[in-house]
């Protein structure tokens, strides 16, 4: 699903955010990406989303070489990746339903099919009853669930999350992680960037650890129990 081949990312000014990263995440995998802040977690996710281009090396997503992705293809490529943000990035000028419907609207679903899918996604995250509310009226945990519903409504093959539990208490965080695991069980590949080590340790999944832009752990496939 995701393959990095000797990838480096240097920002203008010389700061090397990632150096010589290689790893492979299979289809249907569930992995955490961890490391101290500034270690390069966000940069790695940005390379997958093509918000940034690699300085050297190659990134493959779904067997597609992202170096060869044209600007025209980029939006269509992104439609296959669900992205969950730490600050959920919901739009407060519209209802929960309309927030979740956004990716379907963009992909051009007719409103009946879109409505069905949005309700299925909201049902999945347990917020079906709040579809008509404005997300600003929801709690932090609920807002994050809406963000997750929006990320999965298009049934992406890959789900990325950048510190999805960063603003949540341990109880809510565990619930959110459970949700991700559920999606993983139906075949969605999941990669979660998080520095919540205590939470990660409880879940038996592969861990990729970054330190100062280098991958110091998890580059080859092992689960946490192997360490």
């Amino acid at each position, binding site marked *: 699903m995701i393959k990095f081949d000797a990838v480096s990312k240097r920002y203008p000014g010389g700061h090397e955010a990632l150096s010589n990263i290689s790893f492979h995440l299979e289809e249907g995998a569930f992995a955490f990406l961890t490391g101290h802040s500034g270690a390069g977690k966000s940069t790695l996710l940005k390379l997958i989303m093509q918000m940034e281009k690699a300085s050297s090396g190659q990134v493959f997503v779904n067997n597609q070489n992202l170096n060869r992705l044209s600007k025209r293809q980029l*939006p269509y490529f992104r439609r296959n990746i669900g992205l969950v943000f730490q600050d959920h990035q919901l739009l407060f000028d519209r209802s929960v339903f309309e927030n979740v419907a956004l990716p*379907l609207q963009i992909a051009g679903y007719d409103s009946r099919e879109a409505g069905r899918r949005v309700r299925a996604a909201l049902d999945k995250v347990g917020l079906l009853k709040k579809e008509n509310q404005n997300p600003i009226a929801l709690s932090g945990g609920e807002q994050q669930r809406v963000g997750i519903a929006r990320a999965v409504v298009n049934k992406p093959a*890959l789900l990325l999350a950048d510190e999805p539990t960063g603003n949540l208490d341990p109880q809510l965080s565990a619930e959110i992680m459970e949700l991700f695991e559920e999606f993983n069980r139906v075949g969605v590949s999941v990669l979660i960037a998080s520095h919540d080590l205590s939470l990660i340790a409880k879940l038996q999944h592969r861990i990729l650890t970054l330190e100062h832009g280098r991958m110091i752990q998890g580059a080859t496939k092992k689960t946490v129990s192997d360490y």
Partner: protein
Amino acid sequence: MAASRNAAPRKKPAKADKPKRQKHTKPGGLSMLLRNHQQVAVDSLDRLFSAAAASALTWAMIAIAIALPLFLFLVLQNLQQFGSNIDEATQVSLYMELDTSEAELLTVQNALNSHPTISSTEVISQSQALEEFQALSGFGDVLSGLNENPLPAVIVITPNTEILDQVRSLVEELATIDKVDSVQYDLDWLQRLYEILNLAQRLTLMLGGLLAFGVALVVGNTVRLAIENRRDEIVVVKLVGGTNAYVARPFLYTGLWYGVGGGLLATVLVLLAQLVMQGPVSQLAGLYNGEFVLIKLSLSNIFNVLFLSGFLGWFGAWLSVLRHLKAIEPR
């Protein structure tokens, strides 16, 4: 694009709590694009109406910028009626001396008919002139009190040329004919009016062009603010796979609606001005022997104005989108 197809929804049989889904219709194609256009068109108009005060201000600005040259255009069209009568104006009137007899009048007319630069002549005898004057001037009673007819006979000549120099030399020649008192022709001042109108038309065009550019800039700036206001939304839309065209569309429609709305308001302004002017103009027209007809804004004029203003709005928005939208990328 291979990747996007591979990534179609996959389900593992293990998860059976969802109802089995029949193959859904793939989104895409022309109907989807049309649906999106329709939706965005309505949505962007909604947004303008929901911020009514700010929108009205922009609409008023555009309306004034369009109404001004439109009104001038209409005024010129009306004035050009005089210019278009230039054929008639080349007619030369020969005022005969008062003691010219009918026979002498005919002799002069016959001589003129064989002149190489004259195509036709028409005689208005003294009595005909009197009748006409009594009918039109309103001074009939005064004249009937006179013993003698004070009006001269007139020979109206239509030259077969419109070249000013040739007409002038004809006029000089005619003045030397025996029994001719004076020669009058209106070409000079009409020619001048014609040139002035030409100049005014150019000025109106230039003014119109400048104001049109102004309209595009006003819309562009307004759309720039709209883009700023929706920056967060644009970032999210781009991250979940919105194309540049998709992101730009609402703003282009916003520009279009600004333009069309402004054009509509401008039309109303000019129609109002027309209504205000109608009374005085028809009185003036009465003095001109009914030859003058007030030219009003036609339906096709209105249609053209709406089309043009809509285009200007769209164009202004497009300029703004081109400049500002591409700069907003998720970071």
